């Protein structure tokens, strides 16, 4: 009696289920709090008198707090759980053993993660940009870098959730050690971290120079999108080949 499940329909179904599973009061409260802390720091900085250049202050603050901490961590919490939790608790079988392709499952989970991560990161970052009087260029740069960062991190962490148990721990290790320390060693290392691209978007659109943020705007936008696409392809391959509980 089973009928045809088109890829678009499969994406819709995966999206709806994953979104519903990801929304928990604990997750939302914790991540809202992190965003609120970032915004509160920006408001405090914006209210202080000892700033020489509000745009530079804003770019550095948003880069250091927003794109080093808030964006990757929010994306990690949602994206690694999107399919990772279902893989670990055994509910993945309810999407996997179905007459439909597996790649839409990964795409639906990725979109669900983005849906939750974007408002929880962009709202506090835009509030921060406004609070420090960074001007419209900083707001535009923050929004573009935020979208690109969430899209790329979400795809990477959806894949991570399918590859590893305790993916949130591995993801934190990646964010803190690779993106936070290793990628700061030089321009080549920075190119192997999403942070190098979000930083370059901020630099390109505000003309404020940041260390290791020297990529052109097209490169800084396109490479993370390519990374996201490759991560989703790998997630689909992994879904197809993996053992399901």
């Amino acid at each position, binding site marked *: *009696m*089973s009928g045809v499940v088109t890829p678009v*329909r499969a994406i819709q179904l995966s999206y709806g289920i994953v979104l519903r599973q990801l929304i928990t009061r604990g997750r939302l409260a914790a991540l809202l709090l992190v965003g609120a802390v970032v915004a509160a720091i920006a408001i405090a900085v914006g209210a202080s008198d000892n700033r020489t250049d509000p745009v530079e202050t804003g770019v550095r603050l948003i880069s250091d707090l927003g794109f080093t901490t808030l964006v990757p961590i929010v994306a990690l919490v949602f994206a690694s759980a999107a399919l990772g939790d279902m893989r670990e608790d*055994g*509910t993945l*079988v309810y999407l996997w053993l179905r007459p*439909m392709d597996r790649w839409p499952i990964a795409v639906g989970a990725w979109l669900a993660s983005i849906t939750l991560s974007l408002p929880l990161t962009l709202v506090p970052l835009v509030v921060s940009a406004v609070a420090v009087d960074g001007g419209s260029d900083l707001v535009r740069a923050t929004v573009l870098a935020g979208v690109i960062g969430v899209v790329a991190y979400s795809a990477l962490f959806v894949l991570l959730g399918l590859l590893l148990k305790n993916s949130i721990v591995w993801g934190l290790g990646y964010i803190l050690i690779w993106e936070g320390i290793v990628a700061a060693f030089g321009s080549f290392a920075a190119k192997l971290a999403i942070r190098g691209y979000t930083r370059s978007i901020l630099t390109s659109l505000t003309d404020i120079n940041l260390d290791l943020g020297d990529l052109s705007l097209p490169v800084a936008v396109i490479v993370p999108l390519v990374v996201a696409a490759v991560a989703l392809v790998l997630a689909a391959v992994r879904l197809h080949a993996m*053992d*399901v509980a």
Partner: protein
Amino acid sequence: MADWAPPAAQPDVPSSPVIDPNAMVAVDNVTKSFGDVVAVSDVTFSVGPGVTALLGPNGAGKSTLFRVMCGLTAPTSGTVRVLGADARNDRAVRGRIGLVPQQDALFDRLSAHRFVEVSAQTHGIVDADSAARRVLDLVDLDADEAKPVGAYSKGMRQRVKLAAALVHEPDLLILDEPLTGLDPVQRNRMIRLFHQLGDDGKCLLVSSHVLDEVARLGSRVLVIAQGRLAATGDYRDLRGLMDDRPHRIRVAADGARALAAALVARDLVNGVSIAVDSLMVDTNDVDRFGRHIAIVAKECGVRLREVEPTDDDLESVFRYLVERR
């Protein structure tokens, strides 16, 4: 199906059962290992329409075998054909399988109706709402209950899983311990439903580690123990085998030595070992032993304190079947 058969012990039973090419499920020399652990070892069988019970103790490999059949994990060696195809790679066949997994995992924030409706939608059913209501009614659950399934009892969750497995009217139902947590009334109801589906031409494979459950599930049984197919056949033959196998009985009595001599003299036991105030006896005819032990004890002037079978559990039956192979 073959008679009860540790195959090596009964030459009339083939050691490698022939696979029926028209079977709905054909498992051919399947082995599944996880690292050094062999979960399923060289299992071969085929089944057609109707209810077939898969009986085995916990950890015997039943769930792994079901996972291999559904394509959830690939066999290490051997082949599995389900409805003529490999479920792991054939999308159409996946739409003809209904699985009740053993793990108690559901989308806990959804209502029962929404959970089953999602199952229908992921099977491409157009009127998923009606389909969900129909099967929820079939398993005696309220489709309008708004409570999330995370708040349901174990038995209700089992029925939600069953409804989700039935919603697309699959040709093959693989039910891993589906009666766990159900009360006796619901258990009877579900067993009737299984038989009804079997009578309608569906193929149902139902696992259990409870012998009494298997007795009511149907006459066809596959027994799996330690990852191997220990026996296949009719349930009544399994029951007979249980009664006929050697039994070990502990007899606590004053004057154990005299009692042992009398039991041997009357040919009631195969062997006896004597402790200070008890005997351990082996017998092939437990009924005859039971009828005579009190009489013999009285004749010997021995007072019996306790007569206790030490191997009257299902585990020992499985062990016996495996050892006979």
